[in-house]
């Protein structure tokens, strides 16, 4: 049995000086944490919060920016045929690209996971190359491959006896091209996230399942996917936001053409706001991304929270 020596508390009461309220305030953990994060908070305030509110202000100005028009720019957009086309295209672009990125990332992560540890690093490094190259640079290379008149792909197709493909000249092919480049750049991110998730699944679960006679498919469905669900959800949400707000790939590859049929919100906002000198309308277009992405974020995060509570 252990003995606990208890001192007379009154002895302390005499020697300890009453601490000032300020000192107490600064010694609190939450205060220290706040001061540690303050630089980041200021950075976000200056680079994110201020521009966000400023763009809301800009979106409520007239074309010449000389008077306040309220929500007129937003209601005007609803009457534009091109706006609805851009909404449709942005959704097609983001959803299709994210699905393919997730699928390819999942498959490749499993393939890499099965490799012996020594060879794995080499493969991981190589597979990450598309993701680490600045997208503007790699998209330029893709542009040369898809060039309307000098496409390297077409050169091969024609030499094999086929007809040249209008990669960026036809709406369907142009959409295919921008999605393909986005998938090529973004799939390694999914792969590395999924690989990390795979490595965190306890090996005992698979051993037990193997003893119970579970098939490969059953192990995947009942162990791997449930254990990876949170990572899948967060990666999907993150990628959906980034893909939806994509600018560089579409801008470099098609500049929104042909006939505006590959524009997404960011490129159309730039076209109207900067190239067309209509900054308020450009700001209004870019703000339309917020409610759409908020809905997606709420659904995905709610699902993660629910599962967190269940655990």
């Amino acid at each position: 049995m252990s003995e606990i020596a208890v001192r007379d508390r009154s002895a302390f009461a005499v020697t300890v000086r009453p601490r000032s309220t300020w000192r107490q305030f600064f010694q609190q953990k939450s205060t220290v944490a706040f001061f540690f994060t303050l630089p980041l908070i200021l950075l976000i305030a200056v680079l994110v919060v201020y521009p966000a509110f400023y763009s809301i202000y800009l979106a409520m100005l007239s074309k010449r920016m000389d008077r306040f028009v309220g929500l007129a720019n937003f209601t005007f957009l609803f009457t534009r045929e091109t706006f609805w086309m851009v909404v449709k295209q942005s959704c097609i672009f983001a959803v299709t690209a994210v699905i393919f990125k997730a699928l390819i990332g999942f498959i490749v992560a499993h393939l890499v996971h099965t490799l012996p540890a020594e060879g794995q690093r080499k493969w991981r490094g190589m597979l990450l190359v598309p993701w680490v190259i600045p997208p503007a640079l790699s998209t330029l290379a893709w542009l040369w491959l898809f060039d309307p008149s000098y496409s390297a792909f077409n050169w091969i197709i024609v030499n094999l006896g086929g007809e040249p493909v209008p990669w960026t000249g036809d709406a369907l092919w142009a959409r295919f091209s921008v999605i393909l480049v986005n998938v090529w750049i973004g799939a390694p991110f999914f792969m590395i996230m999924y690989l990390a998730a795979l490595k965190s699944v306890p090996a005992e679960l698979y051993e037990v399942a193997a003893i119970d006679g579970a098939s490969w498919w059953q192990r995947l469905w009942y162990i791997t996917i449930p254990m990876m669900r949170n990572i899948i959800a967060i990666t999907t949400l993150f990628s959906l936001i980034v893909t939806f707000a994509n600018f560089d790939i579409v801008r470099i590859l098609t500049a929104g053409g042909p006939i505006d049929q590959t524009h997404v919100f960011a490129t159309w906002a730039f076209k109207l706001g900067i190239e067309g000198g209509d900054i308020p309308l450009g700001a209004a277009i870019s703000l339309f991304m917020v409610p759409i992405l908020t809905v997606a974020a709420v659904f995905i995060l709610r699902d993660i929270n629910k599962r967190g509570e269940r655990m």
Partner: protein
Amino acid sequence: MAKHYLTRRQLLATTAAASAFVAAPYVRHAHAAGSLSVGFWDHWVPGANKATEDVVRAWAEKEKVDVKMDFITSQGNKNLLTIAAEAQAKSGHDIFAFPTWWPHQHADQLEPVNDVMAELIKQNGNVNGTVEYLGKAKDKWLAVPATVGSQIKGPCSRIDLMKQHAGIDVQAMYPAGEPPKAEQWNMDTFLRAAEACHKAGVPFGIGLGQTTDSVDTAGAIFQSFGAELVDKNGKITVKSDNVRKAMDYYKRLASFLPADAPAWDDASNNKWLVSGRGALICNPPSAWAVAKRDAPQIAEQCWTHGMPAGPNGRYAPFLPYFWGIWSFSKNKSAAKSLLLALSTHDAIAKMVAASGGYDLPAYDKLTTLKTWAEEGPPKGTLYHYPNPHNHQTLSIAAAPAPPAIAFQIYSQAVMTKMVARHLQGEPLERTLAWAESEVEGFMRG
């Protein structure tokens, strides 16, 4: 509190010092006339910025002004982003190089330069109608036409291919050093030539994309048919006979253009000519200059000349740059003085020479500088580039609509989109209805 009295000596000393300070002569130091910051367009021709730099430095030396120059590229619209940022911040350069439509966009934020323009017109001759349309709002000159960056996007033809496949001798039609003999060079001849060259496998390289080269050619062809989407009073005239005629012509022409023309950007036509795949493009002499460097055998066969005439006349796309003074500039008098210095005959001749004939002054008396007559090979290839015989009307797509609306028609490439839609099989009336709806949207205040 102790009082402090001035002694007689102190009073005398102070008075003498004050008198000396007041009576001191004005000493003109190195930057006595203050400072000036200028944002020029960064020329794509290597070494072309140097001519501007030399003119500015000589002026700064003489006027004792501390000048800071920035050459801002139009790649990725860096110059447009800078204009937008400076207009918002009401701070930045004193003088800025504004592309075509931008003086009107910022009309309220630009210092009037009527006094400068009056002097320049007296000195260099009148400016063409497009410069006035783009650089003047009512009676206020918003900016001064800049030589650097201004260009005509007329045809640049392959002498050999046009002769061989279309039976057209472009050198005889536009002889160097002489007025054009191009009465037969009209839209029908142009269409027949396009068809012949297409059959021969060297189609005309005219884009139907959404960048300026495509839009400019479409604008000139529409104007030669008298096809206006919006008239000068701001009335929508999309569903007019002239627009229908222009669309019908363009559809026939488009069938002889490269199949991927709707995806072309401003680099595509250059590549088309330099690679030897086409018999004609519509561009300033940049493509020829690149060919001179990379494919001299093709450059030797290039001839820059005028546009074909349509029922409404002969129109050539002209895109002027402007030098404007922001109203927030703190040294407007020095800025105006510099604008005058940049537009003297000698300064302009230097700029034209440094750009290999690419840059164009907007003034009547300056279209026959020796650079255009001497540049080659072949010698005289650029003689007709600056329109020395006023053979064609220099215009910009979407004019004469009020500039605020015309700018939207231009920047949204409404005309080339109309052609591309119709070419894809959309009925003409549906295309016109779409264009009308787009233009209605541009009327928004």
